[in-house]
């Protein structure tokens, strides 16, 4: 059944009533997505001690609380340390893995490729207590490198997924061309393969870092007295109502936004538009 009367308004994209409705609905959904995040900002500047809205006055004291408190700063530093270690480890393990899966042809390849996603499917809580059990046996509770290794397990699937995607899009004839033109294997990798794969590697690194930096449940169990930032925030939420956490959250949101903008800016077209 064709509604021929609607054709008139739909010559081009965006002209139809249905299209406008879609945009309005999506606008609302975007608002829904952003609203909670935006709400944190006024709270973080509140001069009151409770989570009151609207905030009674403007104050930077919660930010001051954060920067002046050594435990907060320690926790932040710990998360950065663990995050960096996780990123390095995940890349060191994930890059060869991705190459092996993308270019190799050996028995069990498909099995490994599917199996890599296992940490995503197994419930987070289950992995967390399993690792906690093992670590408490081994006396690894509270050690930052222990957390990093545990986080690497969680970050690896994401790293591999991103790298595999980049590798599969990569035209291997480019490497052959480089070799034929006189490049040694290392030179070919350095001048052709890596520069082209760089965006994938950056994405994978970013994902690994974020996965670790934001991770709470594993850290909750095994970070012990040397807390990560999410653990400290969680404790703070459970025990106090004061909005220091809001300030910390606001800072995180700003940082992530900055990274997003940076990423978009880096991916802008580099030279003059396509000429035919």
């Amino acid at each position, binding site marked *: 059944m064709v509604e021929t009367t609607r054709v008139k308004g739909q010559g081009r994209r965006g002209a139809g009533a249905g*299209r406008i409705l879609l945009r309005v609905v999506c606008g609302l959904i975007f608002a829904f997505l952003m*609203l*909670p995040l935006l709400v944190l900002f006024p709270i973080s500047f509140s001069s009151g001690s409770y989570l009151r809205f609207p905030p009674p006055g403007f104050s930077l004291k919660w930010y001051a609380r954060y920067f002046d408190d050594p435990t907060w700063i320690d926790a932040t530093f710990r998360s950065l340390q663990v995050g960096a270690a996780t990123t390095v480890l995940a890349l060191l393990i994930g890059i060869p893995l991705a190459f092996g899966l993308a270019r*190799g042809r050996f028995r069990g390849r498909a099995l490994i490729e599917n199996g890599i996603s296992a940490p995503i499917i197994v419930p987070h809580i289950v992995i967390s207590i399993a690792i906690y059990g093992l670590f408490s046996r081994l006396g690894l509770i509270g050690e930052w490198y222990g957390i990093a290794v545990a986080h690497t397990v969680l970050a690896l699937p994401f790293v591999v997924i991103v790298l595999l995607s980049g590798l599969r899009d990569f035209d291997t004839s480019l490497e052959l061309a480089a070799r034929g033109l006189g490049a040694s294997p290392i030179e070919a990798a350095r001048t052709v393969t890596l520069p082209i794969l760089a965006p994938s590697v950056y994405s994978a690194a970013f994902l690994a870092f974020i996965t670790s930096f934001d991770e709470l449940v594993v850290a909750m169990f095994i970070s012990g007295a040397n807390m990560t930032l999410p653990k400290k925030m969680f404790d703070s939420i459970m025990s106090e109502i004061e909005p220091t956490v809001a300030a910390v959250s606001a800072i995180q949101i700003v940082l992530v936004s900055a990274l997003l903008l940076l990423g978009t800016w880096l991916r802008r077209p580099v030279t003059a538009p396509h000429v035919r």
Partner: protein
Amino acid sequence: MTLTETTPSVASRSWLRPGPFALTLPALLLLTLLFMLPLLRLFSLSFAGGFGWYEKALTGGLYTAILYRTFEIAGIVTFFSLIIGYPVAFLLATTTPVWRAIGFAFVMLPLWTSVLVRTYAWMVLLGRNGIINRLLIDSGLLEAPLSLLNSRLAVILGMVHVMLPFMILPIYSALTRIDPDLPKAARGLGASEARILTTIYLPLALRGIVAGVTLVFVVSLGFYITPALLGGGKVMMFAMVIEQQVREFLAWNFAGALSVILLAVTLLMFWLLNQGVARHLRD
């Protein structure tokens, strides 16, 4: 053959790194030691002294009820994520590059903000003195603030908010693989936008929908943070029970049994969702 197909002889004496399998070894080692091993340990703990722990978990109705409720919530969250997420994925897939980038920012920013921060934001929103209550009271619709927090509603709202990007991205990915000439042809035949959405995009996007639904459901089953904070103890999801058993009671064997049950259920749902729809697609 094409010039770039690798062949067995190439691997042996060539510039490609020797033995692609060897490249996977560090990863396999890591996963074996820090993934399989801990899980197996937990698994064996759960069977200490026979099936007693499983009996305790599965009889008596308490834990099965929580499991059922967890299922329910996961299902509701998945459902709402789907009907809210699909239009967004559709819009992103069919709009101009500029708007697409902007839309993506709206999706990516929450995705990269930690779950904890997002959940906390909902605590602020839904609290007695939060925005929603404030708005309702100030506008005169309410006298006393609603207790929105510590409720099922809060948990569902929070979880949908968290899961939405996980639903949107796979669907978007599937939609962008659809041949753009198809909707053009349909438009030329006079189909309305809504019709195009349901009769062309929907079936072809099914693969992405299955991926999104599977991901959201499976992650929701095992979710801890959001229910713990927004449910305040009143809404127990299975992950919270497991956490409690470990942290509060140090009941490792029992927690092990509960974990195995949760894992089994998760894997079952994962398999069902993939198989069931695959069979449906074949028809």
